């Protein structure tokens, strides 16, 4: 059922490194995730889904999972490049769309972004200094333009926005608040990057997508691993033992992890706590959402008629 990627072909270079402790049963994962996707849609009164397809592995995997759960004909993949986005990424996204046979749309975000930050030496709506905006500001803005686009397409396509962020980037905060992290539900948010790769291989995501270096593609040549300074297999193992298995810093060092790196990752996790939670509301009245007014998101009457 699930391809064991480490044994596909002994002679070929493995597509990726999968630490032993992170290996999952991909058959069970597919069952659980498919039912999760169907359940979320049914409970919300929707039959279709929409997601942003970047050409990277996370959104490709989610597209495959959604297609498996509800059929490709109910999925819309929106490709939203900026003028500096890698053409190869778009080619990869198109390959995923072609393989799945789902609907797709191309929405260039260049005019939206340049309208704010300016273009060709002319400042935009963001003010006279907008031309000097840092790559981080621009990257966050792009992520939020994509979010705005997806939520608009959610209306026209009549589908829920499916999240494509993984557990690794969520834990270290490598996400844009109200940008790429915004969604109606997320089927892969509890899978580390290494597990995303394992599941992608099992589902037949194109090999070129699995093999290429992960990148937020916010500027040419950017890759996650050069930016963060460690590789995903190492980072995933650290997060797994530290978070899921509750190992202390000293335990981690005994296990062979670098203390400085463990402490740095700890700071990243703590610093990103705000990105993983809904904003706090000042407690004033008798019952307050999220504090002592606690209902399931979906319950009788909450589905769209």
């Amino acid at each position, binding site marked *: 059922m699930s391809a064991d990627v480490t044994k596909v072909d002994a002679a070929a270079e493995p597509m990726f490194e999968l630490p032993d*402790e992170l*290996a*999952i*049963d*991909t*058959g*069970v*994962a597919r*069952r*659980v995730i498919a*039912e*999760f996707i*169907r*359940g*979320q849609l049914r*409970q919300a009164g929707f039959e279709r889904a929409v997601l942003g397809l970047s050409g990277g592995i996370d959104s490709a995997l989610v597209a495959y999972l959604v297609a498996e759960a509800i059929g490709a004909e109910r999925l819309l993949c929106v490709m939203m490049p900026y003028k500096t986005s890698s053409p190869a990424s778009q080619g990869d996204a198109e390959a995923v769309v072609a393989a799945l046979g789902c609907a797709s749309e191309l929405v260039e975000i260049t005019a939206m972004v340049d309208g704010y930050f300016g273009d060709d030496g002319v400042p935009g709506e963001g003010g006279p200094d907008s031309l000097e905006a840092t790559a981080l500001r621009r990257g966050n803005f792009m992520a939020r333009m994509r979010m705005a686009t997806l939520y608009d397409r959610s209306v026209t396509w009549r589908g829920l926005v499916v999240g494509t962020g993984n557990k690794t980037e969520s834990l270290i905060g490598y996400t844009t608040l109200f940008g790429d992290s915004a969604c109606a539900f997320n089927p892969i948010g509890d899978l580390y990057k290494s597990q995303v790769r394992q599941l992608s291989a099992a589902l037949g995501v194109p090999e070129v997508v699995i093999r290429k270096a992960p990148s937020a593609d916010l500027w040419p040549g950017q890759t996650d691993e050069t930016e963060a300074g460690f590789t995903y297999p190492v980072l995933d193992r650290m997060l797994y033992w530290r978070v899921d298995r509750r190992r202390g810093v000293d335990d981690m060092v005994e296990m062979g992890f670098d203390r400085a790196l463990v402490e740095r990752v700890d700071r990243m996790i703590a610093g990103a706590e705000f990105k993983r939670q809904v904003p706090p509301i000042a407690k004033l009245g008798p019952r307050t959402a999220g504090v002592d*007014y*606690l*209902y*399931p*998101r*979906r*319950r*009788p009457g909450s589905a769209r008629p």
Partner: protein
Amino acid sequence: MQPLRIALAQIAPRLGDLEANLARHHELIAAARDRGAGLVVFPELGLTGYQLQDLAADVAMRAEDPRLGELAEAARGLSAVVSFVEESPDHRLFIAAALLEDGAVRHVHRKVFLPTYGLFDERRFFAPGDVVRATPSGLGVGVGLAICEDFWHVSTPQLLAMDGAQLLINVSSSPGRDLASTNEVGLGTATSWRTLMRTYAQLTTSFVVFCNRVGVDESLSFWGGSEVIGPTGAAIFGAPMFEEGLYTADIDLGDVRRERITLPLLRDERPELVGREWERIVNGRAGLDEDNGQ
């Protein structure tokens, strides 16, 4: 031979939708009867869904609620176990399982152990039951009802068996987690439960019936895998994981006598010793032992 056909209603309840779930129960009770079952078992909170939070009060029923009476009436001629939110006369809410027989609610078990750790928050919304007791049944043997976490405490199956149960029925809403590929069936939760069921069946020399729900409430996915284990600890039937359905298993209740003659573990239990030692331990933990003079 004391043959019994058990129907396991491995359903996916609609969260908070009492009417829809009642209709589904009526449907499956009828189907179980058509298939010749003598006992039909529904999962924990099958009438309400699991992740209720503040909805619990909205879907609560009194044990004498006419809607339960109607289910009991529909189940006339067989024994049925259904689970719901029970509101007591003093307005405490319990996670309850009821044995329905002869058109009436014959026995109600209130969940004693409410997990409030990890992904669970039951004690916030529910009161714990105070009684673990077997009940006689129309099946000709004593029945012991337990709900999910009750079976993560070894005292529960032991008390039920010592109190006369030969058929232990655990109804569950067990959320699946830990997909590590090293697990026997690809799911850590399932591996643990399968171990518990076999162990309890063997140690109590009783049948163990496990009915677990499927479907999704919010973030949680329930894994099904309902089972019937014989008094030797051997699995007699296992329903598929994650697959909704009404599954039947045939057992011979006479196996209990044969196993208890062969392996008289219950005969050799020392309840008076256990009770005495428990009393000592309980007093000690409360600081009431003689040594500290209180």
